[in-house]
């Protein structure tokens, strides 16, 4: 049963990765990567119970935090063009190709 859930999560991760590779806009890619990260957290949690080593749940916990931080950081980079917040050295935003 744990194996069935792992396979379902892996199929979802594959679909999300396909959308991340072929997504028309950059926001599609970020949304797919966000979903991929959430599914990774769930996969690690299921694998921890499948192998009976519940210490792996710590890794899932850390991955949940890293996933959120990385999505927000990439969004900030796409939106502002840099990681600074001051006005004087604000660069031009990245040219995002919307179709």
């Amino acid at each position, binding site marked *: 049963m744990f194996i069935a859930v792992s396979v*379902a999560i892996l199929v979802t991760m594959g679909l999300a990765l396909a*959308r991340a590779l072929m997504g028309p806009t950059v926001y599609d890619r970020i*949304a797919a990567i*966000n979903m991929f990260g959430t599914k990774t957290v769930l996969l690690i949690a*299921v694998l921890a119970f499948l192998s009976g080593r519940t210490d792996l749940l710590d890794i899932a*916990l850390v991955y949940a935090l890293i996933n*959120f931080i990385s999505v*927000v950081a990439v969004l900030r980079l796409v939106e502002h063009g840099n990681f600074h917040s001051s006005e004087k050295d604000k660069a031009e*935003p990245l040219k995002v190709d919307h179709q």
Partner: protein
Amino acid sequence: MSVIEFLSWVCLLSGGLLGVVGGIGIHRFPDFYTRQHAVGITDTLCAILILLGLGLQAGMSFAAFKLVMIFMFLFLTSPTASHALANAAMHGGLKPKLDKDTCGDKS
């Protein structure tokens, strides 16, 4: 098979099913804002059901506490990330695809 175990399998399998449905959804929906709906399904209900199923398997233990912590982080961060993403897309000038774009101008 006890009742708790049965409930746990029901939660786990429906969570996996919702995950696959969301994965199909991000391929079938036409534009970014509708795809956010499919991503939202898998980020919230699928995660909640799978973590609840695992928590029922774990019983009262330290692993259940860690699962509750993962649930709390996902519960707080995934709506925040979805909102930030949609806000950035709208701020970045991505227009929602309207009905007349997909079906042609019927008038």
